[in-house]
């Protein structure tokens, strides 16, 4: 038996405290926007990538790590590892890396891995737009390349696209006609177009 069972006043107080505040949609929109902005750059967080063939997820960063390890093993096996290199001790630690990926990844050079596209999420807040797309130097400013999907409830648009690591200029094309900067990102004058664009840094600095 709890305390409140015998105490109507306490029971009444608990009933009072259980009253829920009404749903504040503006607050929800702010929360979702802030959360999406905080996860804009996947550099600090692993991104889950759906593997279509098997229908399960893998950690992208784990895959990159394994690929790097496999590449090093590949160099060792092929006798291309220079013992005079200052990174020699690494060879011992990766000797136990899984053998399976080496068949396909042993020729992958570190520079290739560094340029591998990284999934990047873009979020845009506009409840009145009918169509929004991300345009930038990564998709040759093509408004049909990365069309965003609208959240049915709060007017947020989002899309996740793979982008090669580095610094990119972008913006949002609203209703195929109005170029709009991302209010959550820093802006810079784009040397190519002479106009301002938003900046995103993809990957680790």
């Amino acid at each position, binding site marked *: *038996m*709890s*305390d*409140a*069972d015998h*105490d109507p*006043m*306490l*029971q*009444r*107080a*608990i009933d*009072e*405290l*259980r*009253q*829920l*505040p*009404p*749903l*504040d949609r503006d*607050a*929800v929109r*702010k*929360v*979702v926007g*802030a*959360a*999406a902005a*905080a*996860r804009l750059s996947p550099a600090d*967080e*692993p*991104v*889950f990538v*759906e593997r279509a063939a098997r229908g399960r*997820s893998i*950690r992208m960063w784990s895959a990159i790590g394994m690929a790097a390890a496999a590449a090093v093993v590949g160099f060792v096996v092929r006798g291309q590892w220079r013992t005079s290199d200052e990174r020699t001790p690494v060879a011992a630690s990766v000797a136990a890396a899984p053998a399976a990926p080496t068949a396909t990844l042993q020729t992958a050079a570190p520079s290739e891995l560094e340029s591998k596209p990284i*999934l990047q*999420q873009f*979020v845009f807040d506009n409840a009145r737009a009918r169509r929004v797309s991300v345009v930038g130097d990564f998709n040759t400013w093509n408004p049909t390349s990365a069309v965003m*999907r609208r*959240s*049915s*409830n*709060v007017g*947020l648009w*989002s899309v*996740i696209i793979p982008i090669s690591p580095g610094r990119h200029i972008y913006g949002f094309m609203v209703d195929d006609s109005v170029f709009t900067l991302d209010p959550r990102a820093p802006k810079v004058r784009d040397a190519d177009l002479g106009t301002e664009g938003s900046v995103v840094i993809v990957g680790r600095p």
Partner: protein
Amino acid sequence: MTRASQPRLGLKTARRGINLTTSPLFLQRPALAAALDPTTISRAKLGDIDAFTAIVEAYHPRCMRFARAMLRNPDDAEDMVQETFVRLYRALPRYEERQRFESWLFQILGNCCRTANTASRRHDAHTVEDDDVLERVPSPDMPGTRFDDEWGDDVRRALAEVPDYNREIFLLHYIEGFAYDEIERMTGIKQSALKMRVKRASDMLRSRLAERYG
């Protein structure tokens, strides 16, 4: 209590054998589980903004209720709830679905509120007397404050006097409806200690209210 008046419990809760019937108060509370599609959390893990929005909409009012009651400065509730969901979204890829989502959310929210209260206490130590915190709770003496619900404000003022560590467990159990075994998993505090904290919070709340309404 008739079967029809009992809250419907989720299948997962039933399978885990969580005893939600230890207190009759539990049976009187509104349904705990928010009406989320089972795939919503999985989709949110993959970065689906719609799914994450659905989660925020489902839990935002409850989080606000908890934060307002927990924080020394209730005006910070909205910021703390936002901070909680930001942390949650960043950590979603690491969420394991065998863990109960709701417990995980309130664990993060509890951490945020505790941190905010500690910071607020440090700040107040340098600026105002500790009792002044109570003055922030709405009262008829505060100009510009709506005072339609005297009982409700008295309850909140009395609850604000309960020490944080007892108040948190009281809120989790009686207001948010978590069973003691679940709170034990969330906080790492033994059930016997949890029950004692709830009892102390109840006693204090009762005695404060009795001073005025007894």
